[in-house]
């Protein structure tokens, strides 16, 4: 009797601990706006703050825009400059959303689960709804979330000659990965 009570208590405690909100400060976002005529518009941000709440399925990301690193200094200046993302004025991009098929993800069992995410992405001070599919990978106590989607730069008020002449993709690919330990 005592043993079964102890086992039940252990399961309750571990389920509670596992279901708690998890955070990381080293999530990554890749931004790929390369085209067939130009391969420079590609950057990575490796110091993104992210959080997931397995109980509610809520997911959030926060990125400092200036932390996107390009290989080319000119492209980085262009990305941050007044003609494009105005990162002095709009310092961060954020995403706040939810896993909409939460029942399909078993956070207490190892595996790779296909997930659907819907939320609001704010870039350049403009918030737009975004829906995407991704994966939730459970390995022991760690949760890894990955997702890829495209955005229309025009939707976020980003217009420039480089986009018009095909040097920068009109719909860059965004890839997000967060490893919650």
């Amino acid at each position, binding site marked *: 009797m005592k043993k079964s009570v102890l086992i039940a208590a252990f399961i309750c405690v571990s389920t509670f601990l596992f279901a708690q909100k998890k*955070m*990381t*400060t*080293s999530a*990554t976002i890749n931004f790929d706006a390369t085209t067939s005529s130009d391969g*420079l518009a590609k950057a990575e941000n*490796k*110091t993104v*703050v*992210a*959080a997931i709440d397995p109980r509610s399925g809520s997911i*959030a990301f*926060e990125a*400092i825009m*200036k*932390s996107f*690193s390009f*290989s*080319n*200094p*000119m492209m980085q200046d262009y990305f941050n400059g007044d003609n494009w993302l105005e990162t002095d004025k709009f*310092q*961060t991009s*954020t995403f706040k959303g939810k896993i909409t098929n939460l029942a399909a993800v078993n956070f207490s069992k190892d595996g790779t689960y296909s997930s659907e995410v819907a939320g609001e992405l704010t870039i350049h001070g403009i918030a737009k709804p975004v829906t995407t599919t991704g994966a939730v990978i459970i390995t022991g106590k760690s949760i890894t979330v990955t997702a890829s989607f495209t955005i229309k730069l025009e939707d976020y008020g980003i217009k420039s000659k480089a986009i018009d002449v095909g040097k920068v993709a009109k719909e860059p690919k965004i890839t997000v990965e967060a*490893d919650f330990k």
Partner: protein
Amino acid sequence: MSRLKYIIFISVFISAVATVGIWYLASRKFIDTANEQSIYSIRALDLIKEFKKSDSIANIKFAGKIISVNGTVTSVEAADSTVNIKLADTASGSYAIFNFQQKNIREAKTINQGDNVTVKGYCNGGVYSEILEAEFISFTRCVLNK
């Protein structure tokens, strides 16, 4: 030289200069941070304090500059191809985070929690995180200052 030949010569010359200029700009790389001079040298806790006091003023002072920051490593967040180290104010949860330049990742992987380090890197600025309810300051292209 006839007028036509002169126009062709000038056009070819301008095209050649433009091509070289574009090639130069497109092939430029960032200078190795190890060879850059720090604009400021500051203790991590003092840096965090400045950002907590006013991140808009601190961003004007530090963002876009090479800064050397000294402090005790509060965590190392490593993945396959990257390492971030954090110098945090454990009382408030605010922190400075340093992502190392590719060629210095091996040395970054030798850093352990509790080590006293001086890291030199490019400050991208700091903001208040609504997720963490704390200030975070991000650095990229970092190297260990030896």
